[in-house]
């Protein structure tokens, strides 16, 4: 991922160079991912060579750009080393970051202070990052407000204005139909700027509903470290292809009651799994294709059967979970109360 960011900076600089050559900025496309880098590089090299034959002035411009490029790579190398806050283990940093993200409480124990809508002071005890961007960091939509994803995987790569295309699709499209970046990939430094000053890597102001947080350098380091690692792996019970669920059935439940709980769940899972390939295929042509595609993993439903006295149920459930974790429990039935 780190390498991807580095390449991205170079790509941006190359694009800058193309713009200087007179290409309309509107038609410039920042490639979606590092894979496309080599193709783009080839293209830009051609552009550079063409420039050189045109005029000597361009040669000096190229020299200047190369110098800037060199210093950019240098500064990035410095950026990279600052990921884990000094004096903290990985676990400590994640724990402190989690309290900041979920509860709005600083490592000092005080609520974080922020300003929202330009001039309304708020504090972490009123609402936290997780309120809008969710515990997972995958973002949310409420009414007219979109809260984008805040996990490292999404922040540290560029965000597209529309559909992300494969390389092949991209080449077949006229440039005006290719997705443009809403914003470039974040780095540790620009992410800290966004949280503190509400400015994205392109210098664009974030919506004023995003609070500007009054955080010190170390607090920012901890939060950025937390975000980088947030939802970096799927939740327990979720794999690349499947989301596992379980339902609970106690012994002694009549067959009728058992069926009343199990049949609708099983039917839903079966029905949805049957339709999944269709949705998956369709998702490939729509907005948020990537998210849709992933949300159409197939489902599996386990039956966790409980035996013996209720006092032992907890340990039985824990043993089931330990053996094979599930993403969530869906209902269940036992004789008497839970």
């Amino acid at each position, binding site marked *: 991922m780190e390498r991807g960011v580095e390449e991205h900076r170079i790509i941006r600089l190359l694009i800058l160079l193309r713009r200087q050559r007179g290409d309309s900025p509107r038609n410039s496309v920042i490639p979606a991912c590092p894979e496309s880098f080599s193709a783009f590089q080839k293209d830009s090299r051609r552009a550079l060579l063409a420039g050189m034959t045109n005029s000597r*002035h361009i040669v000096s411009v190229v020299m200047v750009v190369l110098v800037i490029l060199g210093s950019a790579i240098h500064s990035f190398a410095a950026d990279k080393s600052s990921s884990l806050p000094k004096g903290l283990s990985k676990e400590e940093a994640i724990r402190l970051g989690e309290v900041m993200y979920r509860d709005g409480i600083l490592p000092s124990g005080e609520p974080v202070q922020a300003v929202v809508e330009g*001039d309304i002071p*708020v504090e972490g005890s009123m*609402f936290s990052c997780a*309120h809008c961007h969710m515990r997972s960091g995958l973002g949310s939509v409420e*009414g007219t*407000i979109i809260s984008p994803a805040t996990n490292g995987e999404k922040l540290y790569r560029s965000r597209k204005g529309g559909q992300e295309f494969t390389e092949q699709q991209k080449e077949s499209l006229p440039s005006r139909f290719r997705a443009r970046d809403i914003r470039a990939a974040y780095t540790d430094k620009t992410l800290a700027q966004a949280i503190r000053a509400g400015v994205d890597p392109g210098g664009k102001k974030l919506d*004023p509903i995003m609070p500007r947080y009054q955080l010190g350098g170390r607090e920012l380091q901890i939060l950025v470290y937390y975000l980088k690692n947030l939802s970096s792996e799927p939740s327990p019970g979720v794999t690349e292809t499947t989301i596992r669920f379980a339902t609970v059935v106690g012994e002694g439940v009549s067959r009728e009651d058992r069926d009343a709980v199990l049949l609708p769940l099983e039917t839903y899972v079966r029905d949805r799994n049957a339709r999944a390939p269709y949705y998956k295929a369709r998702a490939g042509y729509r907005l948020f294709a990537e998210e849709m595609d992933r949300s159409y993993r197939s489902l599996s439903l386990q039956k966790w059967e409980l035996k013996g006295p209720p006092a032992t149920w907890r340990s039985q459930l824990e043993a089931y979970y330990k053996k094979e974790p599930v993403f969530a429990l869906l209902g269940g039935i036992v004789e008497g109360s839970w």
Partner: protein
Amino acid sequence: MTKKQNIILIMVVTLICIFVAERAAFSESKPTYKRSIEKYAVPDVTLVNQDGKKVKLVSLINSGKPVMLDFIYGTCTTICPVLSAGFTNLQNRLGQDAAKVQLISVTIDPEYDTPAVMKDYLKRFRAKPGWDFLTGSRENIDRVMRAFNAYVPNKMAHYPLTLLKAPNSDQWVRIYGMVGMSVLMTEYKELGGK
């Protein structure tokens, strides 16, 4: 100057012009909210406040104080906390005079927002006396929403709305969109508040 140099010069100047124009277009501040003057027929409904007390909405709105009203719900994640932070801050700015304005938050989620939930919510936002959070039957809540042209069939589809009314007036200022403190204070002062 050769012809070639001329062309390069023109190109450079054109590029600079395009760049400047584009910057200007981006930095031009769009109005972030819509303000209008409206008249509403407040329905004669009895609602319940955070202390579990019955409140006649019409009486609360016509208590002789300037009124600010919004629609929120206790489990709201993005819009309501920011609207409520605005109310908190207004009360803080008014200090001793906080109770001179009647703040009313009406829930759009009456099934979940019980007096206990609403009391917790107000505590979270350090509400002072003069800020009431109202719930009621689904039927009555829907009537209130419709009366203020704020009906949403689904709470997740709601939008930021602040309504203000001066005492002894039947005109409401309707603010659609998120606003900061400066707008809120200006609007409040125009109602005749200090």
